[in-house]
């Protein structure tokens, strides 16, 4: 059902955890599906220098969380905002059709964390 890439990120998720005194924290939850995802950012000079996640959800939710942190790390916040759900799914060589809403979660959580970071900057 899942691609090798999904299973790799599911079995060995990158960047699991939290960042103390994070510069930005984003949390999204899909109430109907019951999955919840939280992303923590450390930003230096507009560049994401550290990123961590915590996720309650299925294999796809964990894999997309892991992948989005890997894709965002080292990018500027502006670049990271360009990351789309589709791009995350594509980087994992695709997701089963009924799982596409999980990848929405990953990009949304990242965007929420960036929004939170920007609000703190004001």
């Amino acid at each position, binding site marked *: 059902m899942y691609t090798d890439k999904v299973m790799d990120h*599911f079995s060995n998720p990158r960047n699991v955890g939290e960042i103390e005194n994070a510069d930005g924290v984003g949390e999204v939850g899909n109430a109907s599906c019951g999955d919840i995802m939280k992303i923590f950012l450390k930003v230096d000079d507009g560049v994401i220098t550290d990123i961590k996640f915590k996720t*309650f959800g299925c294999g796809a939710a964990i894999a997309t969380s892991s992948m989005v942190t890997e894709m965002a790390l080292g990018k500027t916040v502006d670049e990271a905002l360009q990351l789309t759900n589709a791009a995350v799914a594509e980087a994992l060589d695709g997701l089963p059709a009924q799982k596409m809403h999980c990848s929405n979660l990953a990009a949304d959580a990242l965007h929420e964390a960036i929004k939170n970071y920007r609000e703190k900057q004001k």
Partner: protein
Amino acid sequence: MKRIYMDNNATTAVRPEVLEAMLPFFCEQFGNPSSVHWAGRAVAGAVEKAREQVARLINCSPAEIVFVSCGSKGDDFAIKGTADALRDKGNHIITTAVEHPAVLNTCKFLEKQGFEVTYLAVDCDGMLDLAALEAAIRPQTILISAMWANNETGTLFPIEEVGAIARKHRVRFHTDAVQALGKVPVDVQKANVDLLVVSGHKLGAPKGVGALFIRKGTKLTPLIHGGHQERNRRAGTHNVPAIVGLGLACELAGQELALKMEKVRRLRDRLEQGIFARIPEVKLNGHPTVRLPNTLNVSFAWIEGESLLLNLDLKGIAASSGSACTSGSLEPSHVMGAMCVEITLAHSSTRFSLGPDNTEEEVDYVLEILPPIVQRLRDMSPLYQRHLTCEECSIVKRI
């Protein structure tokens, strides 16, 4: 890698002796049982023998057994066939909120056709309230449909009491006994059942065969209009090998029930006690004692079921989950919902359904593998973290 199968409520392997009994009916004894010639006659006898074997398991007469193509087909026939046959008598059906989709979705279909359906609630253990059942009966009630054993939790309904209530009010009684057969004694006379459904693949026969018990004198409108098979009750050439397999599987189930289920119960209890001893914050879903001997359904708080199943699968362990994420739907199991299981716990519900082929070593292997997986997923879960820092978390209280 070890392969451990603990998903016997989903399906079982065909038993070797069952397969052996089936094999001659593919190439050698290939006849159509409705044919008058030698090829048909030989096969007709085998179908009738299977009918007797099924009848003996549930204590009815062979003429009251109709072979169907699966459990779902049996439920569909019992419910729609009753709705049509008793249309003049009334339009009200009573069922329960925790039935298998084969019953629930058939009832929903009938609602669109103008029937009224009462879905009885269950309590937090998944148990039926008999007073509520009796109170739901109206003059227009034509059918009570209540399952013998729940496929997700194993909870056993008080079927004899339901049957007594149905008889008292002269309402027809259908029970989906797909999960009960081969696991607990089933007797249609004691339970006053009018319609009972059997599925082959849950008790060591192949997939795609089942039987419907229709008590003598019970009018049921046929749904498949075709040939005269099954005394005009169900058209279609018999699936002879599968029917032969179902017959033998029922005979074996009857012979071995007590012995095998005692073994299975011991294994299940070992797994259950082991899980509760090793892992904190686990909730049992279903009735603690009035339950199939092989079924254990538990929720591991703070984690989601599919990710747990995938991790178990990577270690060779097959189980199943009531999480929405495994079903392709957006909602967790309707059975968990009906038992007032809090939503994240419903997403984490995990079912281990054992069989006579499981061993103590297998149970111990699961008990060794499970705690670190649960801990790893909890460490990854934003809910767990919140729980550790928040003593007032409502989810904790609801466990």
